[in-house]
């Protein structure tokens, strides 16, 4: 082979590869999704001003979703932040707030009301990210995002490697104490798809938690998210979280 022939072949191959590269082969599921995409995108709205830290949501979630009641794991929990005048930030969540907050003692410290700058409760749950890192890292395809934006775990397929638990920036995943597979909040998939609201939303007496459909412009939750000042947790991670908070503070992580 001479030099001219070699360059010709290489050039031809590059051109061919370029031509093929401009086409993207769609899997049947992808093509189907492009044609008829879901008209539901679930999103959550939390009002931290309204939350009183009674923990009824945590109790309801654990009982509804069969998370062993006394195991130190939970799909949703409530954090307390107490920011003191001297700049100290105290934060705790005893038992995930399953039994509520019944004592002013925070992180073992007896807090004098006069020393408090601001103090509030922040309920946490899965953010059902648009770009879920937990799904990205799963080596076996056991965790996935449904068309309605909810991230679920396939208990029969999960190998219990724990990558997703490490990958979640919000720390919402854990091992189920009975099944020993990755476990997480599902926005009560079995309820919201059957005309009910989630167990935590129903249990909340103070309307601090709400769930809605972002693709419905008339949904009251969507209206708040679109027209009022809301924030999300760890926006800078690029995960596009879908739990929106009213009254979030920079001390909340």
């Amino acid at each position, binding site marked *: 082979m001479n030099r001219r022939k070699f360059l010709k072949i290489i050039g031809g191959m590059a051109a061919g590869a370029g031509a093929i590269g401009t086409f993207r082969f769609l*899997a049947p599921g*992808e093509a189907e999704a492009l044609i008829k995409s879901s008209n539901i995108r679930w999103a959550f709205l939390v009002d931290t001003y309204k*939350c*009183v830290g009674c923990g009824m949501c945590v109790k309801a979630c654990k009982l509804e979703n069969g998370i062993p009641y006394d195991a130190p794991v939970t799909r949703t929990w409530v954090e307390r932040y107490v920011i003191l005048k001297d700049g100290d930030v105290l934060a705790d969540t005893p038992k995930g707030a399953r039994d509520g907050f*019944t004592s002013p003692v925070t992180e073992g410290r007896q807090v004098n009301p006069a020393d408090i700058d601001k*103090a*509030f409760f922040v309920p946490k749950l899965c953010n059902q990210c648009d770009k879920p890192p937990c799904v990205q890292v799963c080596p076996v*395809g056991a965790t996935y995002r449904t068309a309605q934006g909810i991230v679920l775990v396939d208990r029969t397929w999960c190998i219990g490697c724990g990558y997703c638990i490490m990958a979640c920036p919000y720390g919402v995943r854990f091992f189920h104490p009975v099944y020993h597979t990755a476990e997480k909040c599902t926005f009560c*998939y079995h309820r919201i798809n059957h005309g009910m609201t989630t167990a935590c939303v129903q249990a909340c007496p103070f309307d601090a938690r709400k769930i809605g459909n972002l693709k419905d412009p008339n949904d009251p939750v969507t209206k708040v998210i679109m027209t009022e000042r809301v924030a999300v947790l760890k926006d800078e991670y690029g995960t596009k979280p879908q739990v929106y908070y009213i009254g979030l503070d920079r001390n909340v992580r």
Partner: protein
Amino acid sequence: MSHTWKPVFVVLAILAAIFIARTIIVPPKFGIWESGYMYGWHNKANEQFWLNYKAKYKGRDYCNGCHPDKYSAIMNSPHAIIQCEDCHGPAIDHPDNPPKLAIDKSRALCLRCHVKLPYPTSHRNDLPGFLNPDEHNPGIECVSCHNPHSPVLGGMR
């Protein structure tokens, strides 16, 4: 046949075995769905598992069918915002299973909301309660004086 071909057949046989095993083990619905390999690689049939999961909390309209006295009492009281199942636990198939729901008379149940936590900007600060509950009739169940379904101070037990 030349002995040099034998390893080739061995390799082909192994490949065929892997292929057959894969077809049997991998569920037919396992594939690449909506969002490609990065986010859409899964067994679509599993969604049905979560859809079929049994709901346990019924909501208080269900209770109203058989306990209308309690329902109307609480709906006309300061506790109107609290769901029955918050205090009594999930109904599941009550009254078939369980025939009776739990009755929690502990002070801890009430103190979830009625310990005063003086947190400015938090609604907790607005609830009636006690900075130190041990000073409000300690050792006695709250419901021996207050009616949980109608906790008005005028109508004490």
